[in-house]
């Protein structure tokens, strides 16, 4: 099998793993860290966080912007890298 076909199949599989829970499990899909917080308050009801985050994104929209930015810049670099690598690969094959 060609590499790109193999990788495409693998990608589809990874996607499936993430989509299937959405279809079969009803949940709020909040963060696992929020759940951990509630367990802590169960175990030690008197516990107060002793330090607050120094900055919080003003809204969910701004937060998702930062998210998308992070993923796209990371993807950009990986793509750039593969572009360079494949160009070099081709050059060395011609020799």
């Amino acid at each position, binding site marked *: 099998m060609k*590499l790109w076909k*193999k*990788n495409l199949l*693998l*990608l589809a*599989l*990874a996607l499936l*793993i*993430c989509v299937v*829970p*959405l279809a*079969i*499990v*009803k*949940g*709020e*899909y*909040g*963060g*696992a*860290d929020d*759940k*951990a*917080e509630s*367990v*802590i308050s169960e*175990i*030690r009801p008197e*516990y107060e*966080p*002793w*330090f*607050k*985050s*120094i*900055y*919080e*994104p003003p809204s969910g929209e701004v*937060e998702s912007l*930062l*998210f*998308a*930015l*992070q*993923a796209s*810049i*990371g*993807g*950009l*670099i*990986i793509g*750039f*890298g*593969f572009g*360079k*690598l*494949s160009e*070099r*690969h081709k050059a*060395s094959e011609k020799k």
Partner: protein
Amino acid sequence: MANNRRPELTHLPDGGCCFFREVKMRLKTGASKSKNSVLIEKYMQKAAVVLAVVLAFPVMGAKAMHIMEGFLPPGWAVAWGAICIPFVVKGFFSIKKKISGNSRMLLLLAMCGAFAFVLSALKLPSVTGSCSHPTGVGLGAIMFGPTAMSVIGVIVLLFQAILLAHGGLTTLGANTFSMGIAGPFASYFVYRLLKKLGVKSTVSVFIAAFIGDIFTYIVTSLQLGAAFPDSGGGFFVSAAKFLGIFAFTQLPLAVAEGILTVIVYNGLKKYSNAELQALKAD
């Protein structure tokens, strides 16, 4: 040593060392600099700038399933921080040694770092009905060693804590330990072990990335369990509660991370096999 060929030194008994030695020699003599390789080197230097951007910029958006700001008592916060210091320092020098005089390695390291940033930006739904994200440190650990990922991990976590209110400055040490030390070391040793046993490299990469991801969250759960022992059952009961949240949510996501890591690894193997061999990650 012949200077006009690319560093495909796999036939040498001591591949990694020779590779670096030759690169050093080439840099000194400049004999190998055909037009082509000069061009490539230029591009690699640009890649160095890109790396700086990787390290400084994209980590801002990560939604971390790490220990929340202020949620570790001060004693624990300091202790975990202290434990991390030697790993991060070792990692810094290890990175320096591996990429010095070799811009190709720098490009690969930048890609490994970028991979961790992409994956930690992806909050994925899981079978438990809540979301978490993969860590993406397995790939870099396999290629550049676990301590190199300690450095990348601490940078990711620092920016998350400062700009996104995820994880936290007071919990930076504990989170670095789980994501930048425990996870990468697990990936690294699992990969080496499987390779020694003769397991196919893609399968080894998958299992190593999977274990690294799961282990990160197991350690997070144990850290919380130790800091907040259950009043009745102590450490174990409490750790089990946190495991129930973090580890089970993480299981399918770790499978996804394993698959994504294999995809990138496949590409690297095809286009950059010489470097993978030099890093003993082929």
